[in-house]
């Protein structure tokens, strides 16, 4: 078994016990990149020399007998919308093709304090708008389980690299499912924390009231450990939560006896792939066997969530993306006058989906349509949230599929934006309500594509999600299985 196949917590123990060096580990992952990155294409920037220098420094520290932190010397990848000082951050957009942030995002500062090995920046849908990573202005990323399929999105590079073994862990961001859905498609663990848990400072803004940074990992143990690192109040983000951050690793407990799991009937209808339904229901049965109590619940406004999300998110995006005006940073296309320069810059440098969402957003916000669309969507957001509040009076967690289908083929849906939006039916309601949610692997389709189980928690109750996820994970073997790619397994 190669080193790249192991999760971070196993590698951490190996480093501590001097069974392996950080340089040997980093070299093995870089070798894996050489072997399969041509097929997967998860990365936009690879920082090979810096990675090896970071690994060397960690080995020197270990040689001196110093203690090391959890991620110290463990190679990881960062989604390209999280600002990294001195390392290009493009958001997979042409408009930020040469943008080198002068500062680190707060989540990045917290990660860097651990002395990890940063392998580079990973691909995504441009400005995190999309669910397939096909909207990257540079290249699509392929699913390691079948390179004809998408890895999901928008954090497709994060999930694909963790699944392919070209990173051990990754950071992603989730606005409407962008961590959970690619985790589901790639058979890895992805968590969207409660809104406000992780600072958004330095996360390139898409929809500010919905965006959250979160971990993408091989297993639940790594997820809890990385969550410990990135959470916490930050005065640089006015929406940052002041709630106390628990030690999430204390929730890594195998026990769901008496846990009340809500099954929302609205998440199991309309166009759901029968294999997904069957696999998710089998996972729920397993929970029952493990001692949990299954409760049928209803979240009646679920069917309105997509509409509300695709009005609110584009409206916020239209506003946030005004900053790309060719003046203070980003690309510029010259023209004789100021408005002409801005218009040319934005028209030539934004991709199709980004432009479409800016147009929808500004339409929904414009005089005459504001009440019918934007205001209405914000009211429906209240109703979606109330559904969860009612449900959580009866249950501890809610479980559902993460996505209605396994990974689809590259090119299959790209020409039909609405069809692509409907893929987000199971993930966007959480973002509207600010709730935490995790996707963990729970089986495969007949054609061998991973299927994800989504676990939804109360606000600020990631611990119950982690306990439920860990208990199931330990009863199965999915977290030890990797995509058959480049001759492994």
């Amino acid at each position: 078994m190669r080193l790249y196949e192991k999760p971070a917590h196993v590698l951490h123990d190996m480093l501590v016990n001097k069974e392996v060096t950080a340089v040997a580990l980093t070299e093995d992952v870089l070798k894996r990149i050489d072997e399969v990155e041509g097929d997967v294409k998860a990365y936009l920037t690879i920082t090979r020399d810096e990675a090896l220098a970071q690994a060397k420094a960690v080995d020197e520290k270990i040689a001196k007998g110093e203690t090391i932190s959890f991620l110290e010397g463990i190679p990881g990848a960062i989604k390209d919308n999280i600002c990294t000082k001195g390392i290009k951050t493009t958001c997979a957009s042409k408009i930020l093709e040469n943008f080198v942030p002068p500062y680190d995002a707060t989540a990045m500062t917290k990660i860097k304090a651990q002395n990890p090995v940063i392998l580079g920046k990973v691909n995504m849908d441009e400005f995190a708008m999309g669910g397939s990573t096909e909207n990257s202005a540079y290249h699509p990323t392929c699913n390691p389980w079948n390179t004809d399929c998408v890895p999901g999105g928008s954090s497709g590079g994060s999930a694909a690299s963790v699944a392919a073994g070209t990173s051990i862990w990754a950071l992603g961001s989730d606005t409407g499912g962008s961590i959970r859905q690619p985790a589901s498609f790639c058979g890895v663990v992805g968590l969207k924390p409660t809104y406000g848990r992780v600072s958004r400072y330095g996360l390139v803004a898409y929809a500010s009231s919905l965006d959250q940074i979160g971990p993408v990992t091989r297993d639940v143990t790594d997820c809890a450990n990385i969550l410990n690192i990135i959470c916490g109040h930050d005065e640089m983000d006015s929406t940052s939560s002041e709630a106390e951050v628990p030690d999430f690793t204390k929730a890594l407990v195998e026990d769901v006896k008496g846990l009340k799991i809500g099954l929302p009937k609205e998440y199991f209808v309309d166009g759901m792939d029968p294999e997904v339904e069957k696999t998710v229901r089998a996972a729920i049965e397993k929970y029952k066997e493990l001692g949990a109590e299954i409760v049928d619940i209803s979240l009646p406004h679920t069917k309105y969530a997509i509409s509300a999300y695709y009005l609110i998110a584009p409206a916020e995006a239209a506003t946030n993306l005004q900053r790309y005006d060719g003046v203070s940073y980003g690309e510029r296309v010259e023209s004789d006058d100021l408005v002409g320069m801005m218009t040319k810059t934005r028209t030539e440098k934004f991709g199709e989906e980004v432009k479409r969402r800016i147009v929808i957003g500004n339409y929904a916000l414009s005089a005459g349509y504001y009440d019918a669309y934007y205001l209405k969507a914000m009211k429906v957001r209240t109703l979606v949230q109330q559904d969860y509040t009612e449900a959580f009076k009866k249950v501890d967690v809610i479980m559902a599929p993460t996505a209605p289908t396994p990974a689809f083929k590259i090119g299959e849906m790209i020409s039909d934006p609405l069809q692509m939006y409907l893929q987000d039916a199971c993930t966007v309601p959480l973002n509207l309500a600010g709730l935490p949610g995790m996707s963990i692997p729970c089986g495969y389709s007949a054609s061998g594509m991973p299927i994800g189980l989504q676990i939804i928690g109360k606000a600020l109750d990631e611990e119950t999600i982690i306990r439920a996820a860990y208990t199931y994970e330990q009863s199965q073997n999915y977290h030890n299985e990797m995509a058959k790619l480049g001759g492994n397994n």
Partner: protein
Amino acid sequence: MKVTKEDLQNVAVLSRLAIAEDQEEKYLGQLDKILTYMDNLSALDTTDVKPTTYALPMQNVFREDVVKESLGREAALANAPLKEDGYFKVPKVLED
């Protein structure tokens, strides 16, 4: 069609985007499909529902007004497409 060509071009101007004439039909078709789907919202009576901007309770955040180190001019200008003498440079705005 829910959106007219005129609406589309107005929104494009507000968005500082140019939509070429041969692109209009494609845009209108996609917008029509998306907005028609979103009409399901109108079936809901939301008269007495308060809008939610942030899902979790938010308060305005205040801090002391103290001088702290911030990004220097050079770093702040480092990504500017065009700069001169420590300023961002843009095409001429005012007429002679």
